[in-house]
């Protein structure tokens, strides 16, 4: 019944629209014009609307920054993340003025030079000087961006040297949960492969490997020490996932058949971040950022950053793999 009413309503709307168009055409023809001709007045009206749009567009932009600016990710909780944020700011300070200036020119010219019967357009087909100018300016700006970006990139992508003090954690992804495995006292992760998956050994750890005995497996949440480099290695059980830790400006794909890695130094504990964000319930989070199946939207694990002492205490409480 609803469908029938809807169909009738749509037909009525279409019929009305057709009649209105017909009448408009007739009126135009009567006044000796064709309806599709665009008069200077109509052009000016659209040009004016373009100006209104320009203001509204900038207004919308400003409104969003004002309204949602505070909801963005808080300060970076990792050392390299500060560099990322700085680069982001530099880039934004470059992008936003360009955005504003080009839009002003675009819409202002549209408005100013909208059609008039009396004016003649200027035949101006090229100017080597101008074209050179706006090839070179972006080139210089981009060179700066590229150089700053790449120096950061190389720093981030260098793995932690093995002799340096660090925590080694394997993050293991599967549909639709994360598991973390700490390397334990020996600082080495035991061998693992999907072939060994059986019963409680859900991560497929090779039981015969000596390095595996003191590995510690945690689910639900995992802890990180403040100020100590954390080397992550990532492994997937089934399809591709992506380990995304937005507060640490860290992301790496988790690929079956391939070990990927990422490292960072946490700099702000969870407690400190609660104060910074003024949010009692704040938690760091690891989420999946590569489409991985139906429950992709709910594949998460909490992260707790605490002082080194608290971290060691917590880690000591976790069961070793051999004890399970």
């Amino acid at each position, binding site marked *: 019944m609803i*469908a029938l009413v809807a169909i009738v309503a749509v037909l009525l709307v279409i019929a009305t629209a*057709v009649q209105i168009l017909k009448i408009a*055409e007739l009126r135009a023809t009567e006044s000796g014009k064709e*309806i*599709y001709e665009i008069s200077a007045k*109509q052009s000016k009206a*659209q040009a004016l*609307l373009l100006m209104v749009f320009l203001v*509204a*567009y900038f207004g919308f*932009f400003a409104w*969003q920054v004002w309204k949602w600016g505070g*909801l*963005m*990710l808080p300060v970076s909780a990792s050392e390299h993340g500060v560099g*990322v944020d700085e680069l982001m700011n530099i880039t*934004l300070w470059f*992008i936003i003025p360009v*955005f504003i200036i*080009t*839009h002003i020119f*675009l*819409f202002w010219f*549209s408005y100013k030079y*909208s*059609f008039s019967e009396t004016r*003649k*357009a*200027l*035949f101006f*087909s*090229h100017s080597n000087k101008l074209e050179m100018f*706006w*090839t070179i300016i*972006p*080139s210089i700006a*981009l060179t700066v*961006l*590229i150089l700053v*970006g790449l120096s950061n*990139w190389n720093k981030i*992508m*260098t793995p932690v040297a093995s002799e340096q003090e660090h925590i080694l954690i394997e993050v293991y992804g599967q549909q639709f949960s994360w598991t973390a495995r700490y390397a334990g006292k020996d600082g080495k992760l035991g061998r693992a*492969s999907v072939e060994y998956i059986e019963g409680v050994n859900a991560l497929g750890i090779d039981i015969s490997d000596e390095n595996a005995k003191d590995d510690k497996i945690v689910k639900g949440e995992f802890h990180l020490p403040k100020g100590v480099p954390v080397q992550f290695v990532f492994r997937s059980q089934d*399809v*591709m996932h992506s380990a*995304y830790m*937005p507060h640490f400006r860290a*992301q790496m794909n988790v*690929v*079956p*058949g*391939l070990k*990927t*890695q990422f490292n960072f130094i946490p700099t702000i504990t969870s407690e400190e971040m609660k104060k910074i964000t003024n949010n009692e319930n704040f938690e760091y989070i690891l989420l*999946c*950022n*590569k*489409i991985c199946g139906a429950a*992709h939207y709910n594949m998460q694990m909490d992260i707790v950053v605490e002082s080194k002492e608290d971290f060691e205490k917590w880690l000591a409480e976790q069961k070793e793999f051999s004890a399970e």
Partner: protein
Amino acid sequence: MSAHQHPHEEQDFLFKYVFSQDHKMISKQFLITGFIMGFIGLSMSTLFRLQLGFPGESFWIIDFLLGSWAENGVMLPDKYLALVTMHGTIMVFFLLTAGLSGTFSNLLIPLQIGARDMASGFLNMLSYWFFFVSSVIMLISLGVEGGAASAGWTIYPPLSALPQAIPGSGLGMTLWLVAMAIFIASSLLGSLNYIVTILNLRTKGMTMTRLPLTIWSFLITAIVGVISFPVLLAAALLLVFDRSFGTSFYLSDIYIGGQVLEHAGGSPILFEHLFWFLGHPEVYIVLLPALGITSEIVSTMSRKPIFGYRAMITSMLAIGFLSAIVWGHHMFVTGMNPFLGAVFTFTTLLIAIPSAVKVFNYITTLWKGNIKFSPAMLFSVGLVSTFISGGLTGLILGDSTLDINVHDTYFVVGHFHIVMGLSGIFGMIAGVYHWFPKIFGRMLNNNLGNVHFWITIVSAYGIFFPMHFLGLAGVPRRYYTNSEFPLFDNLFDINTLITWFAILAFFGQLIFFFNFVYSALRGPKAPQNPWKGNSLEWTTGVKHIHGNWPGEIPTVYRWPYDYSKLNDNGDYVTGEDFIPQTVPLADGEKDGGEH
């Protein structure tokens, strides 16, 4: 007079409208099929925006349209992914690749270069029918057991290879691959024809530097297509082998559904390399024709030559070339070699230079013009705006360091929808408004066109601009709902706002479709040259004839941008403010925009 004088009148219905080899009819077929696919893609996006804006709420329309894909008016999570996947596939390939290039390359190449038809009418017809069959298979895949392909339009394995991982990777994915293989064949046949026609069948006097920028853009697009689509075919074939025959090109070390799969030695990253070798040029396959179309419109409607004709061509060539060596920027977080990451950052940011040149040239074309705002011109100005707004955020995503934190978030969704989706669709719609009189011999209604433009641009920015903020807040894309994370709770308003704009955008397009159908059937009859354009298509009659020009094909004497050219006395050379390409050069007059 021979008996063959009016062969077109003897054609029966089937060969005139269905298996036509005439480029103008094929162009119409592409346009209409493309728009039907586009409408389906648009509807899908509106439906999943309902879920994102009002997660878990029951909608009558979802129940009605999705049937078993929904439960009590709420779509199921895996079917949400199917909708997202099909929306992406349809929009990128069927609307903005085949719909855009197919329509305008077919319509404008012979008409603007002065040719009777395409190099091979038969291959051209085949190109359309492959596209049609591919569209049908793609739509059929929506109804099969397990649902349509659900692994994202990028169909990354292993997700796309394993029905155990998501039901859509069963028969739905198989049909997706079949449809895409046929689609690629269609696209290649089209591109072959476009390239050869442009290079070999130009009329007398039509040198390469007298070609309208539309033709240049179609040429470069076709070349990019010929180079990159076969690689996608290779990638898809290897995926077919993995899925259907048990090879291990992409798969390795997988435990799923309680057992270890026997695949060993493959790498999903390989697929990404092959996919993005097409995938990135694909962006420019969408963009370049849109830029070509709007260059033509901006110049014509401003009554000024396009500023920096040669720079426009050079920058398109540069974009075309660079597009083939930047694919790695989609893979910064796949654990790629950091040095490689640096190289791809470099090449990616380089693309900004030719893009900037194009933008500045557009703006300078407007300067001191005499601009008539037809709906086509409004959409062209809109394209320049979206190209700037979306292009600038590319500087963030193209930078490997910054990409780490915004990769695969809503920031990316906002970026590519504005720079590729909106620019592509604005260019296409601008083209339809501008060349509608050439396609259907009738005029579209300008007032409805203006309303359509304003609703579209306002809602489009309303949808995609806030997405940048979602992305900067860390919201990943392809999430069925954001309600599972306390972190995202206060971003709820943004999603609701976006959905309202999406609904507005949907209804705005209905105005366009109404205008389109009404005007094609009942609109006022078009004059031969409604916009007072210079290029050759306006020298043909309103009524389509097989072979385009009765008698000889006109000879070309000048470039197509002699608008408002004055003689030494300060008067228009021909008495009007435009000089068609068929008017010979006066004594001492220089061609190609020399002063």
